[in-house]
């Protein structure tokens, strides 16, 4: 049962990911990405990490991607906006990153196979998935990276306001 659900989600996830990179229009691509994120949330829920699943949907599918779509629609991006030079460069970059990612993936698949296929959907222990545990870890062990992230977000907010103001003054 669990394996069947895992396989369905995995296939949907791969299918969606392929759509993200193959679809021509930016909006369709973004929708496919939203779909992939929801499926990943499903995978999180499958292993019992409901909190992470909910956050995945709220933050990525709900907030980040809505803004993405919003901007794509406002700019009304067309298909042939990327010039030929850019295409060559992105192709080169894509090959390098893709190869690196493939090795990474091979490594993970190997570790997963060594632990047996149950490892794919093994429930996360309750002691690790509860909100209380995650938050106490976040505020003790990972306090420094956590604070650093908040500073980063603050910088982004200030930057956004600055950019918006500049345009108004001109």
């Amino acid at each position: 049962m669990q394996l069947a659900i895992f396989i369905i989600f995995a296939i949907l996830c791969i299918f969606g990911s392929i759509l993200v990179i193959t679809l021509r229009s930016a909006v369709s691509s973004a929708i496919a990405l939203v779909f992939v994120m929801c499926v990943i949330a499903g995978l999180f829920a499958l292993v019992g990490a409901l909190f992470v699943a909910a956050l995945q949907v709220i933050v990525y599918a709900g907030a980040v991607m809505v803004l993405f779509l919003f901007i794509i629609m406002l700019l009304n991006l067309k298909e042939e906006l990327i010039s030929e030079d850019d295409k060559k460069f992105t192709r080169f970059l894509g090959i390098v990153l893709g190869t690196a990612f493939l090795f990474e993936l091979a490594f993970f698949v190997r570790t997963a196979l060594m632990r047996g296929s149950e490892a794919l959907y093994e429930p996360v222990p309750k002691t690790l998935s509860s909100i209380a545990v995650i938050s106490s870890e976040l505020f003790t062990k990972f306090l420094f990276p956590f604070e650093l992230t908040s500073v980063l977000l603050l910088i982004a907010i200030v930057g956004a306001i600055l950019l918006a103001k500049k345009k108004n003054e001109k």
Partner: protein
Amino acid sequence: MDTLDIILTIVKVLVIFGGLMLMVAYMTLFERRVVAWIQNRIGPNRVGPNGILQPIADAIKLLTKEDVLPAGANKIIFSLAPTITFIPALLTIAVVPVSSSLTLFGRNITMVISDMNIGILYILAVSSIGVYGIILGGWASNSKYPLLGGIRSTAQMISYEVSMGLALVGLLMIAGTFSMTEIVNQQSSIIKWFVFRQPLGFILFAICALAETNRIPFDLPEAESELVGGYNTEYSSMKFAMFFMAEYAHIIAVSAIITTLYFGGWQGPILPPIIWFLIKVGFFLFAFVWIRGTLPRFRYDQLMRFGWLILLPLALLNILLTGIFMVL
């Protein structure tokens, strides 16, 4: 989980969603009748006694109408958008406990489809997906007014989602749990209702929830006088109906959530719990229609200013006050 559990879950899903769909159908009639009553009219009363068959007549009319696809519209997304709006509106009800748990044949049956320990987060997550239907419907129509409506609605929903989440934080601090069942259990008597322990939080949540449902006074995405019909201008037939069913399902879901979080859910004396639940939900449904019948629409800049400069600081203040009271 054995077979009986799975069958039970399926039965619960069928009963609760079936009930919700029935309520959606009759909400249309209810709204028209109540608004008519507020405006000193009679409202639909021709189809069946007191117009009781009106929703069925409406459904038949909408199903048999021509389904128009605008020229240059993105066919797939255009067809998908109403569904994307409708399904999240239905899904929110899954974590709302509609009655107390029942013991049947030595089995404890909870009257909620899924009693997950992150119920409130689930509601926020699902409702954040709903905005896609509107924005995509507006974009895929390949038309000016729907696009403007879609963009407006996105900006509005993002703005008010922030305040909605923060308004709930105060309640969560007191309750100490995300589980809807737990929250209902904590409100066993009227004095313990969260509306009295979190009055400001309740008002903020109710306003934000109203804004999330895109209804008057927050119905700028479909302001007739400015945008023809907003994001659903190009829609016809059943797709158009789906947008409206989504709106009504959303209203019912929001009423159920407000009842559960702030008004003790199914808790109440003498009458059976499910009746109490329906009475409370019914009251909020009436309040929604009442608000629609009495208030004018916001102007767009007023809406944004209200959301960011009034609601958001008040929500933060609510968290601060709750924290202070909890420490004292």
